[in-house]
């Protein structure tokens, strides 16, 4: 049980971090590029959503299997194929939850507008400095939303994880699958217990994040004049 909880939290945390790390430049590019094909990329990012998770997991399984190019690459790099490992789970979850992170961050970047970045440029801030000192802080609500949706979704994620993780205790078995197993095995009491625990825990985590963000924010929504 504790194993399972640990793996769940670890998966959600690692996935969320990777999603933020990958999603941020992607969102930035989507927000700022004027390439004509960027909306096609945006649509592509949203696409995995359309497939049922298990089916998506099935395709990921095929894509990552030892005989596929990706699988071969993984084997030559790490000596191991990806499915049925924690790393494989992370990849699958990242793939599946990407749009929930990219879209809110992209919107937040777009809402900043040109002006603050222009001002920073005239103050000799390099593109990197502008990004880190202006764009990132001003887009914080988008990051919060992306992180909450990404985290929660990874905790509850199940189809993809089941398919490419293989439900291996101590390695790829996460809480969502544990609940599912209990439900399948008609062990409702355990299912209720874990579900309730998860809900309470997730509620507290999400609430804490939101309250923290509000504290950090520049004052109340009302009464501002800028």
């Amino acid at each position: 049980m504790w194993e399972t909880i640990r793996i769940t939290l670890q998966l959600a945390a690692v996935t969320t971090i990777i999603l933020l790390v990958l999603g941020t430049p992607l969102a930035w590019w989507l927000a700022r590029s004027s390439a004509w094909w960027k909306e096609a990329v945006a649509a592509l990012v949203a696409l995995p959503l359309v497939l049922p998770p298990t089916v998506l997991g099935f395709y990921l399984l095929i894509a990552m299997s030892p005989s596929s190019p990706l699988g071969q690459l993984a084997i030559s790099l790490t000596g191991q194929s990806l499915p049925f490992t924690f790393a494989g789970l992370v990849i699958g979850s990242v793939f599946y939850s990407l749009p929930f992170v990219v879209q809110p961050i992209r919107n937040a970047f777009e809402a900043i507008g040109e002006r603050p970045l222009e001002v920073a440029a005239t103050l000799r801030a390099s593109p990197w400095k502008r990004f880190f000192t202006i764009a990132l802080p001003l887009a914080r609500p988008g990051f919060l939303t992306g992180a909450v949706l990404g985290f929660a979704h990874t905790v509850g994620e199940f189809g993809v994880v089941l398919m490419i993780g293989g439900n291996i205790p101590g390695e790829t078995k996460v809480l969502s699958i544990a609940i599912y197993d209990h439900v399948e095995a008609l062990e409702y009491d355990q299912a209720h217990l874990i579900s309730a625990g998860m809900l309470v825990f997730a509620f507290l985590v999400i609430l804490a994040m939101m309250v923290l963000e509000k504290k950090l924010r520049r004052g109340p929504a009302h009464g501002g004049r800028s």
Partner: protein
Amino acid sequence: MNFLSAKLKGRLQDFTLDAAFEIPASGITALFGPSGCGKTTILRCLAGLERLDGYVRLKDDVWQDQGYFRPPHKRAIGYVFQEASLFPHMTVKQNLSYGMANPDKVHLHETADLLGVRELLDRIPDRLSGGERQRVAIGRALLSKPDILLMDEPLSALDRAAKTAIIPYLERLHAGLSIPVLYVSHDHSEVERLADHMLVMDKGRVISNGPLDEMLTDCSLPLASSREATSILEAEITGFDDKNVISLLTVKGATLQVPGALGPVNSRCRLRIAASDVSLASTHPSQTTILNVLPARILAVHDLGNAQFNILCALGDEDGGRILARISRLSLARFGFETGQDIFVQIKGVSMV
């Protein structure tokens, strides 16, 4: 010697900019022109925020040319935007120090004191008044130690007292560091006080460009015919009457008396004389409180078309300082002034700029 030279041409929707101009290496250049004539667009092009065709050169440095464009953050400019545009997520202090290469608390506090925002250092921009925001924006640009300052109506939201506090600071800045300033302003008196040069724009073109005193008295420009027409004279303080608190100022062709202790003897200063403060007399008048009644010669008579005339005079003889007088058709008719005539100018108001 020109510090910055630029030639810019391009379109923004219906608007066409086609401007070539130069800015001298030191001093404040006023950018003057009606709303929508392209002043902000010029500043944006110089800052690298907008890219039109043409070139921008700073001393021997090329910022923009055929196929080359230096990004804004590599141009050592300070830009005060037309709207304050503070970073909303930073305190006043963080805003001020954002562009400082090595944050120097003393310097920052000094600047904040000068701009009257010392008490506001920990506020967020949302909680400032309009003028406070503008002052912070000025401080932020100054603290980034630029090689050239671009200021888009930086004082428009400020009251006279605040202006009076900030203008000497800008003057000192340009005297001390001698960085050139391109200064957009609609305020005649601000321009007279601050500017050394002037760039007059209309409909996307630079229609005139030169030293301030020439531009002000050039009757072919709209400035000389405006209600605020003024002359500017460079003067030396040559004496001080302790008892009456009157300074003696020598300009080319005359010596003027101006109330107050204007500065140490032998120092130089700039005098501003409104055309409407100057009257003419054919003989020396007596029994008047007007301090300065000076012999002068008429250089030109210019009909403004509204029953008013501009008379351009030189103090003493032809080579003296130029002074513009605004008189009515009635006076002109009564006294019959004409070019070349020697007369007396009575100067009611002289102020140091």
